[in-house]
């Protein structure tokens, strides 16, 4: 698995607190046995309701950093939401805060979710809205997010940060590597052996 130390690229600001995963990926697009094509349906209903939605603005096309506000990705655990974002080309998200399930799902896809304070995130969103061509640089090791003259100190959960830096952000291989230890724990649990 590759290490992830930094992500640079143009950014896409999506404003609003508590943007739930039904908003990001409406449930009707979960009617499939694969994740293919989900990127076409990101924020589909919000885009239809608001012509000014960032996802309707061609200036942000090709962006790799999503910039969001508070409690992003709350609600349903559907991985279809971060899958759609990753398939669209998003490689990192900077926001005020994230739901735990969304943050974990994104980490499994190698997509770090950086947290920063409201004023910093707002400044970054405003900067990008005014100058969509701005390159935003996010550093996994230091948590530093820079864009033009703006420098933001963001954070990642330490274990996820270290996972990205060491190329161990997808844990399946680790979970399987000492399987005797798993069997030992199972054998000690009374409900596994039927009391």
């Amino acid at each position, binding site marked *: 698995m590759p290490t992830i130390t930094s992500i640079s690229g143009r950014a896409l600001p999506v404003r609003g607190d508590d943007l739930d995963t039904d908003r990001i990926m409406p449930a009707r697009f979960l*009617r499939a046995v694969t994740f293919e094509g989900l990127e076409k349906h990101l924020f589909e*209903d919000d885009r239809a309701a608001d012509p000014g939605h960032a996802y309707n603005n061609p200036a942000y096309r090709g962006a790799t950093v999503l910039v969001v506000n508070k409690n992003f990705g709350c609600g349903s655990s559907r991985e279809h939401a971060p899958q759609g974002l990753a398939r669209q080309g998003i490689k990192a998200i900077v926001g005020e805060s994230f739901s735990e*399930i969304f943050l974990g799902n994104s980490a499994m896809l190698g997509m770090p979710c950086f947290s920063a304070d409201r004023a910093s995130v707002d400044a970054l969103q405003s900067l990008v809205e005014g100058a969509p061509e701005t390159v935003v640089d996010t550093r996994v090791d230091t948590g530093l997010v820079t864009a033009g003259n703006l420098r933001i100190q963001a954070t990642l959960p330490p274990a996820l940060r270290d*996972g990205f830096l060491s190329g161990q952000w997808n844990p399946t291989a680790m979970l399987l590597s000492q399987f005797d230890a*798993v069997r030992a724990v199972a054998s000690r649990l009374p*409900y596994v052996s039927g009391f």
Partner: protein
Amino acid sequence: MPTLFEKVWNAHAVRVLPSGQTQLFVGLHLVHEVTSPQAFDMIRQHGWKVAFPERTFATVDHIVPTSVQTRPFIDLTAEEMTTALERSCREFGISLWVPGQPGGEHQGIVHVVGPELGLTQPGMTIACGDSHTSTHGALGAIAFGIGTSQVRDVLASQCLALDPVKVRRIDVNGRLAPGVFAKDVILTIIRRLGVNGGVGYAYEYGGSTIDGMSIEERMTICNMSIEGGARVGYVNPDETTFAFLKGRRFVPSGAAFDRAVAWWRAVASDPDARYDDRVVIDASSVEPTVTWGINPGQSVGIHELIAADADDEALTFMGFERGRRVEGTRIDVAFIGSCTNGRISDLEEAAKIVKGRHVAPHVKALVVPGSQAVSRAAEAKGLPEIFTSAGFEWRGAGCSMCLAMNPDKLEGRQVCASSSNRNFKGRQGSPTGRTLLMSPAMVAAAAVAGEVVDVRTMLEAVPA
């Protein structure tokens, strides 16, 4: 002095991973048709096996039609997704309950089925690719909603890589007034602590109100923990828990049951447990509660005015104004069901209101039992007749209009009085549809009145 969370976490911790996360053994893995097919495909691509197939159980709930459940389903996509799950379960040796197959009588919403079969037990770690997995905490389990990549991990290794969370103790004390239900309590908690107040926490619910609740009421509370941002919610196991479990299909019997009870008792939080935070709620202050906005924290008591600082986006979308009540809002649809409020006691409370009354002519009303077992229990009590003679549709088991992945959807800007868990924009299938969350009894009252009313005005039975 550890909490239940710490005891269960420690009993299931395999090791600390190089990343610093904990490798946690998952005692029970529940699977449904929507978040699992990609996980099974990943297992196949890597040539892995399912590590503990006997610890995974599957059913179909999200996409299944609730009008007619004979196979093949009329909805071809529902049939395709069900068939894919059948194929995967057969290939990997996993128990499956789907309509039209042996064991189909156990089909239902995964969070209703687990507890009713006794699969869910105190002291377990439980995972499922669904955020409402927190429901299972009502029996004293630590239950995590997970994404599809984590479903793959649990299939492959029976483990998750997780960071521990803090524990917030929420005491609810006192008596709930007649017409006030568990749903009102959890909506009040979410309103008070915020929709992201629980991020980084497990919620431990206790206090005299919770102690006095049935397991089904506790499930309603734990179910919506995630709506407050808490991925995990639980109640310590007690005599109510043990009595609920006794005799259920996957619960040990005889001397093994007694040994199980001793272990279950021991996993409860110690009396002197230390919590990272504590909150106290006075049950007597809880009113029948309804949401006015687009997240479950945006609610008011039935007679309360929408606050002056209410969110603009939510008000605009819902068509409400500051300083007015939700009471009196005309509804188009009434939905009773979901993993939050689709169990037998929920249907009984709703039926008490409906009996001898009739759904308002302009309202489409449906009851969707949480499982086929709930449906059978309701039939034994004569509930379908009460609902259908009042003008409700009586459906087969599934998630239905809670998330509208099947044909049960709102249309246009319809307003739905709903016993479900989310009032997000578009949640019930129409991008402009509007959801008012409330208790099943309140939904029943709204269906009859044709508008949102205080259920306490209908608590007296209609003379026969």
